[in-house]
């Protein structure tokens, strides 16, 4: 057994590293650059029932240590994802986590029901936290009662475990997380982007055509760490952590905070080889800190230490 392997509901991960949804398309671009089999899992781009073009451009704006995006869930729609994208990924021995989005609860249910039947989809990631669409998205993720309802509806139809992606744009994230756990979710993924804006001094208008966008990248890592540290102590379902992960050290910080696996997002845009690089470096960084297996790192920042890692180093 590899020192990096982790078992989560529906997911038998050879390592805890996976590209985050929206930062990896459906894998085609990266498959040209490296063997996707090295990845722990792949979170594919959000899929909606119908095709979506997304928002007008400009859709990205750089910020200090981060970027804003307002892509607007562009995707070819459920039918094409089922007939073209998932079969392409079936050539790889990597579990797929399908990100499911929609405007109405019925949309989520429809997509979840069909996409969870695909043989290589091992889990769903319920996107109730996208800040860049007018209806649905974040509206489902900021109210505990609504989050409960959509999670429960999807759980009833899904053939695979359901993870729910949390929005950081809330006053009390634990309240939402607990509602989602009560609704039967198998896991949480957190965090989605933070709502932000940049203004062009020349035009006096927001840079993004959509006005607002989601902030990602290293700038949001401390926010995500704090939220995972809090939520992981309140719920008993596992968390896949994300937000500004760039290195093996960042991964360990997420695990220490309480995540059981970690997704890499924006960093794929800066260095397309970042995931394999992190996977290669992770065992060394982990051993340096005195851990033999990655599972020993989970929740280390708040768990009662049974043994002191440093004494074994």
């Amino acid at each position, binding site marked *: 057994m590899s020192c990096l392997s982790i078992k989560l509901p529906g997911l038998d991960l050879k390592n805890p590293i996976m590209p985050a949804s929206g930062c990896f398309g459906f894998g085609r671009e990266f498959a040209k650059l490296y063997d996707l089999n090295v990845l722990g899992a792949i979170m594919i781009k959000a899929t909606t029932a119908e095709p979506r073009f997304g928002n007008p451009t400009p859709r*990205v704006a750089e*910020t200090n240590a981060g970027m804003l995006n307002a*892509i607007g869930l*562009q995707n070819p729609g459920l039918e094409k994802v089922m007939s073209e994208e998932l079969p392409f990924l079936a050539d790889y021995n990597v579990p797929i986590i399908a990100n499911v989005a929609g405007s109405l609860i019925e949309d989520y249910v429809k997509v979840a029901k069909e996409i969870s039947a695909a043989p290589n989809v091992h889990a769903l990631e319920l996107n109730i936290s996208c800040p860049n669409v007018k209806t649905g998205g974040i509206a489902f993720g900021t109210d505990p009662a609504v989050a409960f309802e959509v999670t429960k509806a999807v759980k009833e139809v899904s053939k695979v475990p359901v993870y729910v992606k949390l929005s950081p744009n809330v006053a009390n994230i634990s309240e939402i997380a607990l509602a989602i756990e009560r609704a039967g979710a198998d896991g949480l993924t957190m965090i989605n982007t933070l709502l932000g804006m940049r203004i062009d001094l020349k035009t006096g208008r927001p840079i993004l055509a959509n006005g607002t966008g989601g902030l990602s990248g290293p700038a949001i890592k401390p926010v995500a760490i704090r939220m995972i540290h809090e939520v992981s102590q309140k719920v008993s379902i596992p968390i896949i952590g994300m937000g500004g992960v760039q290195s093996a050290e960042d991964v360990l910080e997420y695990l220490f905070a309480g995540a059981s696996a970690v997704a890499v997002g924006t960093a794929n845009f800066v260095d*397309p080889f970042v995931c394999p690089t992190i996977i290669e470096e992770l065992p060394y960084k982990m051993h340096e800190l005195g851990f033999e297996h990655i599972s020993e790192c989970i929740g280390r920042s708040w768990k009662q230490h049974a043994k002191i890692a440093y004494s074994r180093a």
Partner: protein
Amino acid sequence: MKKAWMTIISQTNIARNIYEMTLEGELVDLMSSPGQFVHIRVTEGFETLLRRPISISSIDKENRQCKITYRAEGKGTILLAMKQPGDKLDVLGPLGNGFTVEELHRGDHALIVGGGIGVPPLLELTKQLNRRGVRTTHVLGFQSKEDVFYKNEFAYFGDTYVATVDGTYGTEGFVTNVLEEIQPPFTTLFACGPTPMLGALENLYPDKNVYLSLEERMGCGIGACFACVCHLQNDPQGYSYKKVCTDGPVFRAGEVVL
């Protein structure tokens, strides 16, 4: 496409805020098509997180060197302008589909039109076309006299006309003013520059063989982030798209919505 370190051989300020940088490295082995670009990480820290897409203006395979030409305007390109010979750069490339020179032959006549920072990739293009025996005429547009660059480099390969918006150099006005004046005959038109210029050319020559290279804000440069998508013409539903970074940056006129 590859990610590799390239060494800066030289860096020259050739016009107002315009820099030409010579880079050396194995990445040059992969460069061939004019109009492709490189995606450069200008700092290893997070001051600027994303890479900067910069046009390749000249390829010298023999010496494993290429030139890139850019305008130092934003935070990233200003940082790039401060780099010194000997510094190394983290470069991803070559990216994108460039201009197809193969469909032109000896005796054909290419009209090459560039605007501002769209001019650089056209220099390698004219070099390759002339190597094939294609005759080239060049029309370059700039804001003002201080912004003009590569006039002599283009003139080496064929007739070269310059327009400046304020009339301080060449014809006063836009490249289209020059084109109305000289009415050049041509088999194929190649253009790179601001979108309004590309749109004007598309309208001016609706029945001609026209290739346009687009500029767009990019994230990843490899087709993963969906930042640089554009709509297709003749697509009533509006779901179809092309990515400027991987499907372009060069498109046939009439293909995408400008």
